[in-house]
């Protein structure tokens, strides 16, 4: 009886895992097929696995420079992840410890999470154009930072609130100035929260598409947008195997990060969602 229900549960799990991840699995499989095989054999079985599609992507550096895309994604996502931490950390401390900004600043920032950010996309485009930030990694990183701001502030405020005040008082007794207190005591203690903010922010930033599509053209095109170029129509040949491979490459970094750090994602999602 017990055994039977357990087996059923495992079956349900397998079915859910398979269905939810079906597109990922299918794309991965397709990326390992030659173009000839794709036309002949669209199934989930690879007859002659090949890494040719991946090689083709990196060979076609002249066509689409995948390294540049990846580099742009990395730099922009790094800016978009680290900047919110820098900007939010001191504010989060003031909010958590002194209740400052509880009326406006905190809710305003956190509620950005619920705003469709496309409402800012157009003026940002115009502003970026006059500032020369269009198609720059810095420009993309800045807006990714805005995207990550709410979750960063929320998690940091909650993290700091959960830290024992004693430690900060001890540091004050020990003569720590405010910067020392924040940097030598509070910041290191926030590490779990920071890791969470970083992972979640990095995944969000890496996966962002709309701003990448609107605000970049060439120099700062992130990999998500770059991958979609491989599907672009209007001439040339689209090679589905190569397209599958570029999707896999584009999706891989956050997925790998997420799989290793899934615990952090779980915790932060809860904080981010429940308290937001």
């Amino acid at each position, binding site marked *: 009886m017990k055994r039977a229900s357990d087996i059923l549960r495992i079956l349900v799990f397998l079915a859910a895992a398979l269905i939810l991840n079906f597109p990922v699995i299918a794309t991965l499989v397709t990326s390992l097929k030659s173009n000839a095989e794709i036309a002949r054999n669209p199934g989930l079985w690879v007859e002659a696995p090949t890494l040719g599609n991946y090689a083709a992507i990196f060979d076609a550096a002249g066509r689409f420079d995948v390294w540049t895309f990846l580099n742009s994604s990395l730099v922009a996502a790094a800016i978009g992840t680290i900047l919110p931490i820098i900007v939010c950390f001191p504010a989060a401390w003031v909010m958590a410890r002194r209740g400052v900004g509880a009326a406006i600043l905190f809710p305003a920032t956190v509620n950005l999470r619920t705003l469709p950010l496309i409402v800012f996309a157009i003026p940002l485009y115009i502003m970026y154009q006059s500032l020369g930030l269009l198609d720059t990694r810095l420009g993309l990183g800045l807006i990714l930072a805005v995207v990550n701001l709410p979750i960063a502030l929320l998690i940091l405020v909650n993290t700091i609130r959960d830290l024992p005040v*004693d430690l900060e*008082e*001890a540091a004050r*007794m020990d*003569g720590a100035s405010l910067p*020392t207190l924040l940097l030598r005591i509070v910041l290191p*203690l926030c590490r779990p929260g920071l890791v969470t903010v970083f992972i979640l922010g990095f995944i969000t930033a890496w996966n962002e598409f709309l701003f990448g599509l609107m605000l970049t053209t060439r120099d700062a095109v992130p990999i998500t947008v770059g991958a979609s170029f491989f599907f672009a129509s209007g001439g040339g040949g689209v090679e589905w195997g190569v397209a599958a491979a570029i999707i896999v490459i584009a999706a891989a970094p956050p997925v790998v990060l997420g799989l290793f750090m899934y615990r952090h994602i779980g915790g932060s999602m809860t904080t981010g969602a429940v308290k937001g």
Partner: protein
Amino acid sequence: MTGIVLDGIGKTFDGTRIFDDLSLSIRSGELIVFVGPSGCGKSTLLRLIAGLETATEGRIEIDGRDVTQSEPHDRGLSMVFQSYALYPHMTVQQNIAFALHTERLPRDEISARVAEAARILKIEPYLDRKPKALSGGQRQRVAIGRAIVREPKAFLFDEPLSNLDAALRADTRVEIAELHKRLGATMLYVTHDQVEAMTLADRIVVLKAGRIMQIGTPHDLYTAPANTFVAQFIGSPRMNLLPCEQMDSTRIRLPGGSIEIPSLPCRPAQIGIRPEDLNLVAPTEGRLRGQVVLTEYLGADRCVHIDLGEVRVTLRDAGSSPKIARDGEEVGLAFDPRRAHYFDAAGDAINVISVEAA
């Protein structure tokens, strides 16, 4: 050495009045214990002295210097927190040295001082460990080490033993007492545990709801509590308080009997008798009569709980006492009225000295 003076301290917190015109003078080199039930303001008082809270009114002087508005660090005090508040991301060595680094002392002096503190507290083997890897007792020593190393004008202890188990607590209590003797430093110690207060203190400050109930040596407090609160707070089991009614100038009526009393300046409303001052006698012999409810055997001692009509009293005598007190047995209680404490209707002690003089 240092004296600390609190003068007319007032503190309002979120609209609630916590202290009102509280004054206190602490002598240099003294170990003074703030004791009281939770919520009495003893910790807040310590934090006011530490500078972690700012007084709404009044002055705080340390060593004759007005520090009312000074930052915690500028007051030259060290504090040991209830949670120890060790920095979890630093090693023991770094924890102890942190304050010295913020003072920008030369490196070799820092290591010398840390080594000295570690030696005193016998924590040398753990210097490279993180707090996580230490036992409760070891953490407690590190916390003290962190306080010592700054060579402060005074040490502040905020319930430093409450996170330790009973056995360790007794040991550490002794160590703190030794440390006080060795360093001769001023120490302010907060606890809710009257045993700690009695064993450690040079003087005890008993607080209740933000007011000082009594200041005095443990002996003073025990033998001459200023009011029923102190009387019941200090001593274990706590003092028996019996309502009384004056019959004539020399006799009062108590539940379960009446006694002859020494001359008192005014009429007592309550009489307090410590459990060890009560003696078990034959029902006919005692001043009071009651019925045994329960006997607790504690080894060296035993406690006998006796109902005197409405009121229950506790008696303590030697565990080896031959007098048998079975449950439900009718017994008599004897005591020396001169060792009893007399309180007026407000609960304040009626001058004890005149009792002794009589």
